Structure formats: C-alpha cells, structure tokens
C-alpha cells in the first residue's frame, strides 16, 4: 500500500501556496505510507543555458559548498547551490551528464535525485510529516507537484527506493501498486544502454516511459504503450515540466480520487487527503477509470 498525491495550480497567484496546500494532502496519506515519502516540485524553470540537479547525501556529512567549489575548479563554469540540510539544489551551466558523472566519481555518497530545468526532488525515509518539516515542503512554490508516501512491499526501505523515481530530464513518476514483470522490462531496456540504480519495480516503469519519451512519444502515447508492456497493479502519477498525468491499470485495485476546481487539480489515493483543500465543496470529484489517461497541462 502507498499513498499518492498530485497538485497542479491553474492560477498564477496560487503558485506561492503550492507547498502549503500540499502538506496536509501528504500528511493525510501517512497511514497508507508511513515508512518514506518524497516529492517532485516543478518550479519556474532556470534559464536555457542552465540545468539543475537535486542532490541528497542521506546520513553522510557532506560539505555541499566544498563540492560546488571543487566543481568550479575542476569543471569550470558557474555552479550555484541552495542547501537544505542533507539536500541541495545545484544550478549549473555545465552539461548535467558531466556534472552527474563527476559527482558519482568524486563524492559517491551524494545521490543525484533529479535533473532538469524545472524539477526539484526530495525523498527520504521516515514519517511524511517529519519529511515535510525537514525540507520545509510548506514553503515550496511552483506550478505542480507529484508526491508519494511509501509502505514498502517488494524492496527495501531506503531513500533510493522511495518515490518519486526520475529518469532523463524533468520527468518523474510515483506508483501505488506492484508490477509483476519489472525484471523483464529491465531486460529489454538494459541492452539499449539504459542503466538502473535500484531493484525497485517502479524504476522499471519510470525508465520505460522515459525511454519512450526520448524516442519521440508524447507522454500519453508512452503510457498507452505501457498497457501492453507493464504487467501488474498500478496507479501511476507522472510529472513533466508541462504536465501532470494519472493512469490506473485495467483492474484499478489501487484507488485514486481527483478534485478539479477553477483554481487547481488535486489528486490523492483517498478523499481524506483532499478534504481540507480550499473550496473543495465546489470542486468536481471523480475516480479515474481503468486504462484511461488523464492529463493536465500547466
């Protein structure tokens, strides 16, 4: 069992409140996912020449400022850091692939959680409320976000196994359910040069969709292909810098409720995470139907 949470604000004036609106939604999903939580927020994008990476050092004491200085010395160029405890957002003008590889080689205790122009990613083990406080989720600003509370059923409880999963740039996915053929999917993707970081089933889905996006599929097309490739139970919630998408498998065992109002689209596994949203009484509520793809654009 897990909890999923998604929020997209339709009005520019609500972007400053994105995090504050979301925190009760995430905390409301604690019983569905008490062991870890994570969140991807899509902010105003950095400039065309820049890219940003969300970095996470977990239990390791890492001097992020030193890391940025070393980056400047060794790779050259501009590297700006915004540090929050064991988490940092690095804005760089260098090639993000090169930066990621440099980090992997020089500071392997730092994980690169996401790469893109709009996405910031946080994930950690612990109760959702603690994680929300740790990273000040209530202060997050942006257009939309994808969040998850995890109750592990098929692989370890570690930050790396927590959702959201990311692949490529500005793409993330959270999952409630379990896939029965992740190893088969992985076997098809690895010969294409696609590397995996964990043994988690959700990562296989994430890397499959991102591969299809790179091959030129629209997100909806990629998800439709997934119907015949991914076997198992899922409610997937996905984000790109432009859109928020939800889809449930044909058996739709894993719940989801959508509330749409003039101001926002809010998604959660259960209504109890939506009950406290402003003007919820006038929002239109529905459950996504099996194998129907629902997309909202910013």
């Amino acid at each position, binding site marked *: 069992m897990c909890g999923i949470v998604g929020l997209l604000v339709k009005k520019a004036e609500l972007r400053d409140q994105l995090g504050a609106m979301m925190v009760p939604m995430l905390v409301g999903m604690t019983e569905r996912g008490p062991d870890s939580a994570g969140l991807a927020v899509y902010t105003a994008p950095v400039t065309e020449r820049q890219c940003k990476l969300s970095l996470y050092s977990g239990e390791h004491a890492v001097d992020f400022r030193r890391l940025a200085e070393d980056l400047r010395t060794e790779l050259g160029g501009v590297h700006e850091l915004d540090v929050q405890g064991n988490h940092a957002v690095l804005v760089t003008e260098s090639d993000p692939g090169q930066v990621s590889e440099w980090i992997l080689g020089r500071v392997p205790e730092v994980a690169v959680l996401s790469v893109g122009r709009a996405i910031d990613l946080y994930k950690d083990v612990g109760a959702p409320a603690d994680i929300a406080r740790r990273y000040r989720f209530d202060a997050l600003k942006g257009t939309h976000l994808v969040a998850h509370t995890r109750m592990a059923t098929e692989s370890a409880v570690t930050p790396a196994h927590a959702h959201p999963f990311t692949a490529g740039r500005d793409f993330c996915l959270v999952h409630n359910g379990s896939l029965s053929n992740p190893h088969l999917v992985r076997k098809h993707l690895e010969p294409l040069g696609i590397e995996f970081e964990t043994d988690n089933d959700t990562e296989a889905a994430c890397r499959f969709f991102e591969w299809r996006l790179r091959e030129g599929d629209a997100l909806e097309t990629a998800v439709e292909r997934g119907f015949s490739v991914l076997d198992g139970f899922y409610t997937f919630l996905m984000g790109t810098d432009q859109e928020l998408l939800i889809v449930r498998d044909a*058996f*739709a065992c894993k*719940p989801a409720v959508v509330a749409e109002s003039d101001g926002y689209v809010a998604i959660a596994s259960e*209504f*109890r*995470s939506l*009950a406290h949203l402003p003007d919820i009484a006038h929002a239109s509520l529905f*459950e996504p139907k*099996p194998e129907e793809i629902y997309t909202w654009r910013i």
Partner: protein
Amino acid sequence: MANLMPVSKTREFDLTRDSLRDLNLFLHRRAAAEGVSRIRVQNPDGAHSIACGLDADLDVQIHGHVGYYVAGMNKHASVTVYGNAGPGAAENMMSGRVHVKGFASMGAGASAHGGLLIIDGDASLRCGISLKGADIVVGGSVGSFSAFMAQAGRMVICGDAGDALGDSLYEAVIYVRGAVRSLGADARVEAMTDLDCAAVSSLLAAAGHSHDPKEFKRIASAKNLYHWHADADQEY
C-alpha cells in the same frame, strides 16, 4: 391508549471535533440505551469505517464524503451518505439499508448477505462481488467485474456495465438497463418474465427510481460452470 412509543432523539457528531472511535462506540453501545435513534454525522472528510458493524435499528445520516468500508457488516440500521463513498461500502452487509447519494468506489456491497444497498451515482469496479443475498440498486453505471461469483441476491443497474459482468455467477440475478461492455464467463442474457419485472419494479421503487422495468435485461448464470466438463479444455 397512551402513546408507548419511545420519543426518538437525535444526536449529532462532528468529526472535526469528535473522534471516529467515539462515534462508532456510541453507535454500538450507547445509542439504543440512550433512546437515540437518529444520528447525524458532519464533516466525515473521508474517514474510514464510519458506522461499521451496526446491530440496531438506527438511522445514521452522514453529511459529506466517506472513506473505506462505510456501514460495513451493517445489520438492521439505515445508513445514508450525502456524498461519495470510498472502497467497500456496505461490504458484507447482513440487513438494513445503506444509501450512497453520490458515487461509490470499488467493491461496494461485496459479499453482502442481506439488506438493500442503493447507490445513486456510479459504482466502481467489482460492485456486488461475491454477493450472498443482498439487493443492490445502482442509479448510474457499474465498473468491470461487477457481480463476480455472486451467489444470491439481486442487482439492478440503471446505467451501463463494464467488462466481465456476472463472471462465474451462481444464483444471483442482475438486471441492466444500459449497455454491457462484456459478459463474464457463464453469464447470459435471459428473457424478462413478469416476476422479473415485478422484482425490478419494487427495487426501483425502493431506490426512488421510475424507470420502466421492461427497459431492463435479465442476466443470470448459464450454469455451465456448475459441473466439470473434461472436454471443455477450460475454455468457457
């Protein structure tokens, strides 16, 4: 003759203030003793297991949306949800009446033995799965795999049905007014008899609908799965 009927009292719970446990304790242990027969619940905000396991002639009115298992295992009581219900509404109901004014999520009325479940809106997948004798009236449409392995009872669907309706049915009977995307294994459409029309008519009346029973199709078991056929090669 003096009026010996006890005076009916109403008690109100507000779940932003009162705990769910206090509400359910009251419904189970105190309501009857205190002569309270009507209970109004405000701000349920999607809480789970509201009014579960009731065993008395109570009238519970819930104003808002509820989470999993509302009125599960209900006996005797009438529970009305003025909103939507999460998964497993009236699951394993024994008797009484559960009325969801909005839509109901998956597994509504699953394995219910008796009583009447009314859903004014749509019911999601697996509505009435393993039904064991209750009646279900859905004002809207039902999702796939509804009435799977339903053993006894009746299900009236005023809208459409998804895939595999009535798969592996036993003695339960389904009446559908709209389109059926597909029937499940061993389910078949049968002619509506006068008795079927009368049954549908009375269930529709109980649920407050006025459709013409003649607009409904009867779906029941072809009973081919009742016996093992060695030659069938498991292809039904």
